[in-house]
């Protein structure tokens, strides 16, 4: 199973767990399984269209899945999937 690394802002939805073992053949399956196990994560990771929202970045090991095969990126046993929310703001 792949390891999913949960960033600090989302750990409140995973019982404060930072690393989770989740089964799946690709990123889409892993995210689906993850949000099935932790339903409160779903509104952060899946939008109304059933897609991963633009303000959530997902890395497979060191690569953004936007540079791979998006949500169809293949996941292997030793893959580490990291969920990375966008961090932004400013005076405006």
């Amino acid at each position, binding site marked *: 199973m792949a390891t999913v*690394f949960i*960033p*600090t*802002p*989302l*750990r*409140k939805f995973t019982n404060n767990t*930072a690393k989770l073992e989740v089964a799946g053949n690709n990123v889409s399956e892993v995210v689906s399984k993850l949000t099935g196990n932790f339903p409160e994560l779903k509104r952060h990771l899946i939008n109304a269209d059933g897609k991963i929202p633009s*303000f959530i*970045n997902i*890395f497979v090991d*060191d690569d*953004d899945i936007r540079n791979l095969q998006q949500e169809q990126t293949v996941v292997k046993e030793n893959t580490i999937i*990291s969920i*990375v*929310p*966008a*961090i*932004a*703001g*400013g*005076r*405006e």
Partner: protein
Amino acid sequence: MLYIEKDLVDDLIAVAESIDEECCGFLFGYERFGDRIVTETMVAQNVAKNRRDRLFEISPKEYLDAERYADANNLKVLGFYHSHLDHPAIPSESDRIAAYPELSYLIVSVINRKFKDIRSWRLNASARFDEEVINDRTIN
């Protein structure tokens, strides 16, 4: 309450005063009995595509590296800091929209390149910011 050593605050202020764009970065530390103790800060590059004097953005990879650093060093990302140039240390709507609960959002106000104020904020259950007291023993 957010505890942060004066030396760390001074470093943040020095960076904020030295550039003509919003600075930004990470607050690392740990929690104890409801208090949050910042033990380290790390500057990040502001990669906002425009108006970096009014906006900041941290690259996903840099943020991921910061989370990995915290994990490897038994620390926690307690929050983020950024500066407001010629503007109060009060979160904007764009700050609010991008914020997550549980984290501290430290804002350094710089007016005419001089430090004016530093305040910390946390998102409440209604998705509004409440001010978080900074331990004033660490700040002049």
